């Protein structure tokens, strides 16, 4: 079996790339996609630990994470559509009403 450190490191690398994506992109959909993939990166660690410990619980947790991600996408994207309808833009820099 592959040593446990490798999947954990891969998971960490993927997670970090997505954090950078959230920080350097100003487009709300792009940021949202990056957040989704952060969950995905965490799932890799769950699966690797489940196999390493020989227990099902990690896989069951991934099941729940996938469900929550799906619900999150549905609500998040409809929020973005609503924002686009009222403001005509989904660049987060354009949404600065509270600063006035």
């Amino acid at each position, binding site marked *: 079996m*592959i040593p446990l450190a490798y999947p954990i490191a891969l998971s960490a690398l993927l997670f970090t790339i997505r954090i*950078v994506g959230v920080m350097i992109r100003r487009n709300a*959909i792009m940021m949202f996609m990056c957040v989704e993939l952060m969950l995905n990166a965490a799932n890799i660690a769950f699966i690797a630990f489940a196999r390493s410990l020989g227990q099902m619980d990690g896989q069951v947790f991934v099941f729940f994470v996938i469900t929550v991600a799906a619900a999150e996408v549905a609500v998040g994207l409809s929020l973005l559509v609503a924002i686009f309808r009222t403001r005509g833009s989904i660049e987060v820099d354009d949404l600065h009403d509270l600063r006035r």
Partner: protein
Amino acid sequence: MARKHSGEMVALMNLEALVFIFVGGVALAAAIAMVVTRNMVHSALFMVVVFLATAVLYLVYQAPLIAMLQITVYAGGIMVLFLFVIMLIGAEKMTHTENLRWQRPLAFGLMAALLVETIYIAIGQIKPPDPVAVGPEFGGPKAVGPVLFSQYLLPFELTSILLLVAMIGAVVLTIRREKTR
């Protein structure tokens, strides 16, 4: 006989390692491309590549059920939703606005710090438990089902409420109300 068996084990392990390296490399490359590209549709398609690569990785770690769920829910459902909204809004091309100049260097600095920290913990701090041998049943529906429906029954039922709330929320948020005075 024993030597032949251990030889097979080593070959299997090498194959596993090869698949892991290849798939992990594809996932990393696609993730970087996804963040770097300026076209949102390309970005979404790179995301599909990441999802598929991750599904193969799940197969390496004996989670066939989760791998199939990943492909159907993420690559099937969520991606269609993303592409649909991107095209509905017409935001394929990202405009380049940079109001905060110091933000990008700061992002890369924080990335380096986080990376060093997590890799250090992954390599140095985690004491890997002795690998447990598992049967071919591990990770199949037959193994996941009993755990999901007995030990995790309450979270499972709560998930259904969550999905219902998400469904109602999506409908309420996107419904176009007639202007009433």
